């Protein structure tokens, strides 16, 4: 499964409002949670915040990837946003976060879930790519950037 398969214009935002980690994650849940694959947004929220308690998903370099697994979704849902302001996310490197990827998988689909997690975190571990995302003006630009970057990685 490709990252661009699970993103679409309705779940990608630039200038996401919010000033705290919690606010931002909740905004992301609103974004992803309005899709038809989500049967229970609150259970999805619980799964994400439960996972966050185990260890911060702010993996560093201004990027965070809140995620969780729940049976409240029928298929993988995702959202991506660039925040309007830097957020204190309690990241592992203590740097503020501006790039957020939300990923929610089905309970019994561990394989695809962790595969996407590693794909996304690997893609985001590229300073140029992060810079381009920060500078993108519209959701379409962001999707196009993901498309290009993913294609480059798959070919390489």
């Amino acid at each position, binding site marked *: 499964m490709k990252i661009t398969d699970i993103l679409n214009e309705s779940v990608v935002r630039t200038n996401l409002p919010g000033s705290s980690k919690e606010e931002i994650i909740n905004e992301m849940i609103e974004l992803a949670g309005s899709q038809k694959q989500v049967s229970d947004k609150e259970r999805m929220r619980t799964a994400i915040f439960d*996972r966050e308690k*185990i*260890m*911060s*998903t702010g*993996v*560093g*370099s*201004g*990027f965070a*990837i809140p*995620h969780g*697994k729940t049976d409240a979704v029928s298929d993988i849902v995702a959202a991506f946003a660039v925040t309007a302001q830097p957020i204190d996310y309690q990241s*592992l*490197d203590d*740097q503020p976060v501006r790039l957020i990827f939300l990923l929610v998988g089905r309970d019994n689909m*561990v*394989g695809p*879930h*962790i*595969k996407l*997690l*590693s*794909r996304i*975190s*690997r893609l*985001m*571990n590229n*300073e140029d790519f992060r810079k381009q995302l920060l500078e993108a003006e519209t959701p379409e630009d962001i999707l196009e950037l993901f498309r290009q970057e993913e294609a480059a*990685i798959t070919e390489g």
Partner: protein
Amino acid sequence: MAIEYLLLIGSLLILISIAFVKLSDNMGVPTLLLFLCIGMLAGSEGPGGIYFNDPHLAQSIGIITLVFILFSGGLSTHWQEVKPVFWESVSLATFGVFVTGVAVGIFISIAFNISLLTGLLIGSIVSSTDAAAVFSVLRSKQVSLRGQLKPLLELESGSNDPMAVFLTIGIIHIITIPQTTIGSVILLFFVQMSLGAIMGIGLGKTLVFVINRLKLTYEGIYSVFALAFAALIYGATAALGGSGFLAVYVAGLIIGNDEFIQKRSLLRFFDGLAWLSQIAMFLTLGLLVFPSHVLSILGIGLLTSVILMFFARPLSVFFLLALSKFNWRERTFISWVGLRGAVPIVLATFPLLAGLPEAEFIFNVVFFIVLTSALFQGWSIPAVARLLHVDAPYEIKRQYPIESVPVKGVDTELIDLIIPYNSAIADKPIVELDMPEDSLIVLISRGDNFIVPSGGTVLQEGDSVLVLVNKNNLPIVRKIFEKQQELAERGDVSN
């Protein structure tokens, strides 16, 4: 016989035996009985028609396989479980064996008008029990035992073979060298047992120490090393005049309850080896016996069996556990679970080799006793356990996606983590992470690949991993994964 036929026949016998393990699971018959029967059927009086009458070879196979069975038995015995019943088990394994042997001996020498020494020899040979047979039956019937019964039976049966061996050798000694004094036999007892225990403890600890410092490149060699060491423990102890069987069992117990590298693969290796040993031993013993000869002692065999099951074993159990915390139901059950296994048959080859005139007779009687004990006691154990209310629901072990040692009563869970950017653990092999003992990285996802990690696998930034972790250890694991590289080490310092 040409080697290809030897391999063909040997492997076929083993494969048939394994096929019957499945069958015995369904029927609740002790596996040892089936292996013996397959050996008999393959023998000269069965359809197999293989003529085998070499007690010397049979005894050698018996001793070698017994060394590995006992070592493996020690390895899989959990000290914490058997500790509370240590003294009860040990007294059953020593005095209990003695009382059983003497009671059987006196009875049959009176009943069948044979010499007291021959009677005592038979009694000694059949005096030790085999609990592996018991637990295989219980497991297949999905029955467990209440309270301390399981550890007691486990430790008793694992540790009572040396005593039976000693009694057998001691009596053969008295028969063949008439001027032997009781005093010298008692001295022999103390030398055998103390040397056996000391060598077992000392060499067991040595093995753990050495194995942790070996730094061998190939995992497989650790098993070979331990295998050779187990044989060494037996050989060295026996050569010095100690009980080699006691030494290997004690060493197994010491090693199995200590921590060392490659423990899992070693335990597995010896579990497999113990199975192979059991199959090989019983097949050999089944081949060695001539069923028609066994039938000729039907009367005396049957009566001796009855005496052993209903009189001698209960006598020793009730006598030695008189002051113990076990209630009468439990004592009755312990009495009934005096299954005789391979050791008596192996010991029955000793008189043959010593050239005793009654050796053939003794061998057949012993063989018959083992057969009836395995058949009647083995088969009836689940029912007897229920009847005496000492059974407990069988716990089906939880299946984990990958082998681990879950700690009892504590929650273990599978969590997913991402290796952070600039993580201190990136580019390090997993063995160097100092993960808590009961935590395990089960799977690594990197790009489009899944990697099943081994200790040498190196983690990378952005990998996502599945970690099996004990909830108590979560903070430790978190700390390991959260650790960032020192700023100076970072290749690119992001803004």
